[in-house]
């Protein structure tokens, strides 16, 4: 190694090799981890309205509204390869016009190092719960599930569903008052 060029070249090649090796070790040591956990979901208020959906077809669609409680301990899910957990609460149901409907009503990002114990009461939804039609009123089987997407530094992007979902029913009558 005599010239500056060969020295720089050797250094650069070594740096890239070490970084690549470290990334691979990060990936391999966490590739088979189990990222499951339990969650406790409960609805406090459940309403359904029938109003024009100005964000979509402008027809009158059913709009659901729920205030809910959420409790989960996600601390064991974090390791050196988990950059963040993307949590989302999904409402899943069936209507006469659609066999499967899934709507995310709330989400949260927890980064490594932040508080990973959820114990929230009376959470309001983050997103509007519009149905594609009028299938929410009196719907007897709407399931709320908490899921999370594990975002690693490098590697797989698995999605898991919490053990413990919550089923509820929408009322038979529309609500017309403001909430």
């Amino acid at each position, binding site marked *: 190694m005599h010239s500056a060029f060969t020295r720089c070249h050797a250094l650069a090649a070594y740096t890239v090799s070490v970084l690549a090796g470290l990334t691979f070790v990060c990936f391999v040591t966490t590739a088979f981890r189990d990222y499951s956990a339990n969650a406790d979901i409960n609805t406090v208020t459940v309403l359904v309205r029938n109003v024009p959906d100005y964000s979509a077809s402008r027809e009158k669609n059913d709009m659901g509204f729920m205030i809910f409680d959420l409790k989960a301990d996600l601390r064991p899910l974090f390791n050196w390869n988990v950059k963040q957990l993307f949590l989302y609460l999904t409402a899943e149901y069936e209507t006469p016009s659609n066999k499967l409907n899934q709507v*995310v009503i709330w989400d949260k990002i927890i980064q490594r190092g932040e508080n990973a114990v959820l114990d929230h009461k009376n959470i309001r939804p983050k997103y509007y719960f519009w149905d594609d039609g009028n299938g929410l009123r009196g719907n007897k089987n709407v399931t709320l599930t908490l899921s999370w997407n594990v975002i690693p530094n490098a590697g797989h992007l698995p999605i898991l569903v919490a053990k413990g979902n919550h089923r509820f029913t929408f009322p038979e009558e529309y609500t017309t008052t403001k909430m």
Partner: protein
Amino acid sequence: MDSLFEDLRRMNKRQFLYQVLSFGMIVSSALMIWKGLMVVTGSESPIVVVLSGSMEPAFHRGDLLFLTNYEQDPIRVGEIVVFKVEGRDIPIVHRVLKLHERSNGTVKFLTKGDNNSVDDRGLYAPGQLWLTKKDIVGRARGLLPYVGMVTIYMNEYPKVKYALLAGLAGYVLIHRE
């Protein structure tokens, strides 16, 4: 560098043709690997580079994503999908927010970037309210950070791309193995 030119002067026609053949082999191997990946993953673009910050802090500009597009594995809410809006070539990496599926199998999706405050209806084609299966290029399965920055630099400064390619081609053609 001098030794390289010495090698070139010493080469005869046959050796030069052999070098050209080696170069051709390298290019074809690269192409075979890429096309093979397309078949194995079922996606027309199995590796994409994240171009915007709309999915921060999960993905940053320059991260590499590995995609699959299997028919038998239906897309569900919360999954990170890469889609192309009709008429535009840029792939967008966002998360599925809503999904409605009919009993005949047709599905419609609404997507939103984690770092955006509104859903993607403003990004879709005029009059388009939902994405369908054919708009989706694939689902993100794996992540490799920072590696895609090379592609971004090469696209933003095309001279760098041409210089790099010319240098590589020259090196392979001239250097004697």
